[in-house]
């Protein structure tokens, strides 16, 4: 009783801090917004007085670059097909977490923790969605003072609107900002939810929630900014303009690292946090003594199917346009994934004597993970090799490596997502090479595919892998240790024995 009281007190304190911070930031934003109109007014006055000297007009135009373009302006084409595809993709990626990942994970835990595992994914999705709109989108997808994180200039969608635009990968082609923001929201949410696989069945709900909020803020947002933020293709007109634009871009983007749909941002980022979670939380009670057999592989199989379907939005949607590039990502998401399913289950059959359903499901997920950074960059041969390697190596990571090192990564979030993500990130750097059937890396200054430097590309990919491993691992460790010494990470032994469904939520998954 005393314990739960102190937990709720900590939660209330944290919530107050968040509210205060929001109020403060909000008022600052309001002030910032209030300071802008005069500039606009000047611009309007200048426009209304054409008799004035031309330099004044030019100065006014420079002073007010914030006359934000909207969809349909000259050079800001919004394509109906693109918009339709991106809204569809966004809903697809939502479906990956709610309920795809939730069911995939829940099926692998014991009956007494089945409901709480679903609850984790659902709650994380909702909480991250709220934070994303308030400050996440701004912190990840605006230019910042450093290449590591954006600004709060779009705090609570400031300056955005139904007509506001976000860049795609084609010059002159834009997406509605709201659509792009929602698409990216679903990525942030699933990344945080993926971590549940590492600490499954033993992290109490309050600690899980605080961890998720802090990790999202201090790891997801910076990594997403570092890998994905850029000024957009229209900023790359000349070599000098490109240099300026690159100085605004995220740290890893500027290094030339490529990540089509989130191998580093989503999978390595979440996977290493899951490993840290498994280590800091410690093993589940009864590890190696009690049977932790999955309570329903049928749920896991259904979840796998939903993940695969949703992943077309994740990967093909990451093209940001309904083009042949999206088609390539779609192709690889189907073909590569199937390869990995065959590779995992086939290897199991050879080694253990029996191919398993959990094996083919795991292979499918490993393939999806590995093809994520590569989807729009590699050809069929690249996809085949990356996914075949992922299917086999992730199998060993989830079985042998885990057994040898003795960590309890309950649902193999590290073994599948981090290891698969690394294979994908490095594989992308190799097979994006046009000589190996890849697309090459587009040079927006030359408006053509640039000359490919294999060593430089591989180095950039390794930078991305290393940075996300270290950054995310460090953030996860610090946050979990803080929670461990404050509210504690695990429920009481009795509560764990009873199961988190009853102890945290007062519900049972099945009243049969």
């Amino acid at each position, binding site marked *: 009783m005393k314990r739960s009281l102190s937990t709720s007190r900590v939660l209330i304190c944290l919530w107050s801090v968040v509210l205060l911070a929001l109020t403060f930031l909000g008022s600052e934003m309001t002030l910032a917004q209030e300071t802008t109109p005069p500039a606009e007014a000047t611009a309007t006055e200048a426009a209304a007085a054409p008799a004035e000297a031309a330099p004044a007009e030019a100065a006014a135009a420079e002073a007010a670059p914030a006359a934000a373009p909207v969809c349909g302006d000259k050079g800001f084409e919004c394509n109906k097909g693109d918009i339709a595809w991106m809204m569809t993709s966004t809903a697809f990626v939502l479906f990956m977490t709610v309920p795809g990942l939730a069911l995939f994970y829940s099926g692998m835990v014991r009956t007494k923790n089945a409901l709480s595992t679903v609850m984790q994914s659902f709650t994380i999705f909702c909480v991250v969605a709220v934070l994303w709109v308030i400050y996440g989108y701004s912190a990840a997808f605006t230019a910042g003072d450093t290449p590591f994180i954006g600004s709060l200039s779009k705090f609570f969608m400031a300056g955005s609107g139904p007509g506001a635009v976000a860049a795609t990968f084609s010059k002159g082609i834009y997406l509605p900002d709201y659509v792009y923001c929602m698409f990216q929201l679903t990525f942030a949410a699933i990344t945080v939810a993926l971590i549940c696989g590492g600490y499954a069945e033993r992290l109490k709900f309050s600690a899980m929630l605080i961890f998720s909020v802090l990790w999202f803020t201090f790891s997801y947002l910076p990594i997403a900014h570092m890998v994905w933020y850029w000024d957009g293709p229209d900023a790359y007109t000349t070599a000098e303009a490109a240099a300026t634009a690159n100085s605004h871009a995220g740290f890893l983007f500027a290094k030339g690292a490529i990540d089509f749909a989130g191998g580093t941002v989503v999978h390595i980022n979440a996977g290493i946090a899951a490993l840290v979670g498994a280590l800091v939380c410690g093993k589940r009670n009864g590890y190696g003594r009690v*049977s*932790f*057999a*999955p309570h329903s592989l049928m749920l896991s199989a259904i979840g796998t199917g939903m993940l695969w379907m949703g992943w077309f939005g994740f990967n093909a949607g990451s093209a940001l346009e309904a083009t042949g590039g999206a088609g390539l990502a779609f192709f690889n998401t189907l073909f590569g994934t199937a390869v990995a399913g065959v590779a995992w289950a086939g290897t199991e059959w050879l080694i253990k004597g*029996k191919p398993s359903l959990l094996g083919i499901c*795991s292979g499918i997920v490993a393939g999806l993970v590995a093809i994520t950074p590569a989807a729009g960059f590699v050809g069929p041969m690249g996809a085949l090799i990356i996914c075949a390697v992922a299917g086999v190596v992730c199998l060993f990571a*989830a079985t*042998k490596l885990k*057994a040898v090192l003795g960590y309890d990564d309950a649902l*193999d979030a590290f073994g599948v997502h981090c290891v698969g993500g690394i294979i994908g990130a490095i594989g992308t750097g190799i097979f994006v090479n046009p000589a190996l059937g890849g697309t090459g890396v587009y040079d927006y200054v030359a408006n053509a595919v640039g000359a490919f430097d294999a060593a430089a590309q591989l180095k950039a990919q390794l930078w991305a892998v290393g940075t996300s491993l270290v950054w995310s691992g460090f953030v996860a460790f610090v946050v979990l240790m803080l929670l461990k010494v404050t509210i504690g990470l695990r429920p009481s032994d009795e509560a764990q024995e009873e199961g988190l469904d009853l102890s945290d939520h007062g519900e049972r998954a099945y009243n049969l």
Partner: protein
Amino acid sequence: MKLITAIIKPFKLDDVRQAVADIGVQGITVTEVQGFGRQRGHTELYRGAEYRVDFLPKTKIELAVDDSIAEQVVEAITNVARTGKIGDGKIFVINLEQAVRIRTGETGVEAV
């Protein structure tokens, strides 16, 4: 009266029910149980985590019968539930002191 308890392979339940009904048994009680005997368990493997399952699922049938048909019932169950492979189960017979039909209050053989 005798109380006959038979532990059988689950898929033999329908055959056994038919066989004892043919002899004139009025009712049986069925329970899903787990246990071990000479039949070995099996191992389950989930992503490398290996679990030995020592207790196998069986079906337990209990039936109370008059002494006159007890022998016949045991024989019928033995015949029907046998596959010849290890793990076919067991039958236990014990003396039954009393039986009561709750609805009518009848006792003894009348009640079974």
